[in-house]
């Protein structure tokens, strides 16, 4: 399985009867893979020697105001049934943050309004598109960090301070925040092809990797490491590129 499209969904749910400090602190970035909140994996994302990763889409719960919805039921108590996180997502590769402010400092990243997840039927296409996509090379670690700007801890503490029926718990059915990441995982020989394409400056997409494989098959085991081979491959790619441009099957989108 050389080329696989992969998805990762992170969900932060209520934890029922836990201290308020069990929820993320507002304004602090947490990893959606190995952070202390929500579902997690054991090992931080790391691209092995035989792999190549292309991240091309992500999103998180949209909305600015939390609009908390409270239900009080006799014998059950008071529950928080919905909450909007006012979230932002930042991508970190090794130790470098992808998103920065116009003043060149590390930022919180892209908001859920610009890149919403999930989409509903009333949503227009998102404003933010990850073009060009991000390449994660072998031996690199990568991470998505989520920041919640609505202070859930403070809200629960404020309600608890009133006592009685105001003491609020968040049931496990309440989704507090969600993040989604979609990427292509190339491994084995396809990862080597990704490197060849990278060396030639050709965008790494599923189509281009498949095309290069066809070029290799046509060469029938002849030496592909010569300059002539590189040259003919690049000329062939240029012809394809010109064809797409001429017949409008692909647009030049920045």
């Amino acid at each position: 399985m050389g080329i696989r499209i992969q998805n990762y969904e992170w969900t932060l749910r209520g934890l029922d009867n836990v201290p308020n400090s069990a929820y993320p602190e507002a304004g602090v970035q947490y990893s959606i893979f190995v952070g202390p909140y929500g579902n997690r994996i054991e090992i931080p994302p790391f691209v092995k020697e035989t792999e190549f990763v292309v991240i091309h889409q992500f999103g998180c719960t949209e909305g600015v105001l939390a609009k908390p919805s409270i239900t009080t039921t006799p014998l059950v108590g008071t529950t928080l049934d919905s909450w909007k996180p006012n979230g932002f997502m930042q991508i970190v590769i090794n130790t470098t943050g992808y998103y920065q402010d116009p003043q060149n400092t590390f930022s919180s990243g892209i908001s859920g309004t610009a890149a919403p997840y999930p989409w509903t039927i009333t949503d227009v296409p998102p404003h933010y598109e990850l073009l060009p996509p991000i390449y994660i090379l072998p031996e690199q670690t990568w991470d998505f960090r989520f920041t919640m700007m609505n202070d859930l801890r403070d809200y629960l503490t404020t309600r608890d301070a009133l006592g009685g029926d105001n003491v609020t718990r968040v049931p496990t059915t309440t989704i507090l925040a969600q993040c989604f990441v979609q990427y292509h995982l190339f491994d084995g020989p396809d990862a080597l092809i990704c490197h060849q394409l990278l060396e030639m400056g050709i965008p790494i997409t599923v189509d281009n990797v498949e095309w290069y494989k066809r070029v290799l098959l046509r060469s029938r085991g002849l030496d592909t490491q010569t300059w002539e081979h590189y040259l003919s491959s690049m000329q062939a790619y240029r012809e394809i590129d010109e064809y797409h441009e001429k017949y409008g099957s692909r647009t030049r989108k920045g």
Partner: protein
Amino acid sequence: MSLRRQAYEWRNIVPTGKTVSNTGHPILTYDSTGAVEATVRQIDPYRPIDIMIGGLGNNLEEPAELRANQFVVIDSVACWPISSAINIRIGTTRYFQDPSGIPSAGMTGAAMPYLPSDATQQFIGHYDILIPPIYVLPGQAWGIEYTATETLNTGSPVPTLDSEIATAYVRYLLIDGADMLVAMKLLESNIPVSAETIQWYKRTLIRHSLMADVASEETLNKVLEDMERRLI
């Protein structure tokens, strides 16, 4: 990371008692009834506000100015509500102007809406991307100006809906390092600067380099063929 797709978002919501948050988007707290302890600041009509250093909403500490190794391509702007407009400033020049040549409020939210999640009407807008995009060259200062065409959030109320918050959004391609040199080369050749054309130019450079190598190898072989072999 030489080609990066960046975005900057501005909102006029700030914690109660404040006008500006200089450290980016503020943390929003809520009272026990679920009301946000923040206000959406009043915006007077036809008074442009710089969304980065305008002293209202989330701001930066420094104005946006490109370093010597940076190049920016702004290709999408949007704002909300529809009775607002957005203009792009490069140095002291405003991008959008009216037919008489005077800088205008800019592209309106109706033409390029930045829809909140609870908008009652789903505006699609006329534009998604700016064609042609706007280039900001190394060393240039730039900014985005937000102008309301009517008074927004009169009396700076506490918002109850996302659609009551005035927002502005700009999406741009940040090119730095060696790719900035390629971008400048494309600019000199009057070729549009985008992620694709930069990659195309790099491919051309590699191809030409390979062609030169092949040609020099052939020339070398030819020269060697004509030369007498000597044993030293």
